[in-house]
């Protein structure tokens, strides 16, 4: 039997887990519909079955290719390990940053949070010179925000946490008054 990389095992496991979870949750809406024989769960379950078959098919193909070959480690997660822990940490933070931003957006508001988000993104991706780090995001933020808030009247989240809401509404009034 050929040797598969950890990444390939993870892939097939992830797909089967997705299929299994999707099937499990489909039990919640597995109801008959009077005028439709296949019910609410018929179509999703067909897709789930095909996903499981597809995952096993990919797995079988990986096995065939791996027969007799040394462990190649060409998967994404395998290449990742070449770069060491520092790279992992920076990429992990870069991926987590948008999630944190989206999570705080409702409470802190677009107007306060966005420049910080952009500065943090630039810093994580290697820009450490102070001037471009501060000025570029600020310039983009001001121009784009002016266009959407003042010219197009697109409403953006002002935040609802104390202090942040006040800042957001003050900023909107300021920009729209220009």
């Amino acid at each position, binding site marked *: 039997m050929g040797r598969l990389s950890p990444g390939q095992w993870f892939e097939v496991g992830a797909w089967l887990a997705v299929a299994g979870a999707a099937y499990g949750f489909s039990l919640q809406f597995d109801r008959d519909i009077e005028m439709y024989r296949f019910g609410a769960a018929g179509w999703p379950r067909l897709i789930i079955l095909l996903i499981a078959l597809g995952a096993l098919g990919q797995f079988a193909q990986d096995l065939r290719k791996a027969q007799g070959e040394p462990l190649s480690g060409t998967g994404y997660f395998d290449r990742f390990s070449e770069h060491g822990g520092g790279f992992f940490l920076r990429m992990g933070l*870069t991926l987590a940053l*948008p999630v944190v931003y989206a999570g705080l957006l409702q409470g802190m508001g677009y107007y306060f949070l966005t420049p910080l988000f*952009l500065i943090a993104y630039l810093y994580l991706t290697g820009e450490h010179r102070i001037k471009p780090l501060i000025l570029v995001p600020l310039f983009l933020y001001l121009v784009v925000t002016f266009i959407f808030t003042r010219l197009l009247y697109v409403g953006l989240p002002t935040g609802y946490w104390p202090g942040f809401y006040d800042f957001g509404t003050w900023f909107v009034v300021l920009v729209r008054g220009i």
Partner: protein
Amino acid sequence: MEQFIAGALTLVGSPLSVGIFFAGLIGGLLFGAIPGVSMLTLAAIFLPFSGLLSASDAIMFYSVLYCSGTYGGAVTAILFNIPGAPENAPTAFDGYPMTQQGKAGKAIGAAVLCSALGGTCSVILMMLATPLLADIAITHFGPPEIFALVFFGIAVASSVGAATLWKGWLSILLGLLLATVGLDPVAGIERYTFDFVYLLAGLHFIPVILGFFAVAEVLVQAERRVRGSYDMPKFVTSFPTLHEFWKLKVAVARSVGLGFFSGILPGVGATLAAFLSYNEAVRWSKRSHNFGKGELEGVVASETANNAATGAAMIPLLALGLPGGALTAMMVGVFQMHDIEPGPLVFVNSSELVWVVFAAMFFANIAILVLGFLETKTVLHLLRIPFQFLAPGILLLATIGAYAVRNLVMDVGVMFAAGILAYLLRRTGYSIPGIVLGLILGKLGEQNFAQAMQLVSYDVVTFVTRPIVGVLLFAGLATILTNVYRALKDSRKEIEA
């Protein structure tokens, strides 16, 4: 011909009409390029004011907006991998790799020319054949045929963009699964909503597309910067040559046909037109292995088809009063605001209005050619800006675009989640276009399948023996089997090597 000339003269007859024409043209180009905002936003904003204009000016504005807005989304798709609208998504598949290879000018030049060409051909066909084509489309294309068309489109797409055939299918199936989130199309039963009110309407495709394309690309470039392997794309403003276009004449003609055909079908429209045309270009090209890596034919196929669908979408609207999409649905509203009922009688009672629309769309497509080239000369210079400074702008626009769709912060969260997922999937050989196609076609496919089954009383023989259904299903199955055979052959060769 006289009617067309009369329509054209009405168009230029008053300064207001000329002003409305250019407002629609430029508004469509600008708004069409902003994902999440798009031409539909401008159309919705303008709707209440359209009652103040004459019927011909109001309808003319929307028709011109439709033409220019459909092209507008191609520019950001090519330069930044951010399609302005779903119908521009296939343009990004090859347009953005062309930018990375320093051929942005070629890609945008091709998009300009093909959009103008596709739109102009579509308008000419529309003028010649509206009543006849509308009748054929409506009487011969029902839910079974639309489902079979979706199946065919998905079967062809499974071979595009992924490292292996299995990964291509898994990509599409993931998109189809995501499309089931929300309410089922038959009885409105909640599926995968987890009692979240937000998920009742399903995942909106704009935030998902923004995530899959724009955010994922930013993350991919971020990884390159973190690894220290980032290279600035080369900056060259050369446009495609006539010889290059002449070599693609078959692809252009096929894309006009596919786009026009898809545009006539109510509810199908420019998005399916673009994907179908791209898929067929892959299938028939001698350089199919180059698609997804910067093949000009990919841009040509997508942009010709999506603009060819714009004229065709007017056919069911004008001839039968059936809107083909969101913009044409708004146009029904505009008609009704002016006490005009779109349908066969509009050709009898308001024929001059119809010909103003035809003339406006014709000239709009010509104007796209001129304005598009001018726009290209200026917009291309954005590529001189290092990507690490463009990326914050892209993230900003994507955030606003995702939020502006429904004023929901959750859409921003969905966008970033989709971006991270797409980043990981891209690095492991899955096809993001495949996922997007599955997501967009999933609901359409399921809805039409359910209606089709009820129509034929679940008799499979009746279903597959409908001529158009039979042909499309056979073609789809043949495509799948051919792809499987090729994949097995290649796999055997690899193992033997």
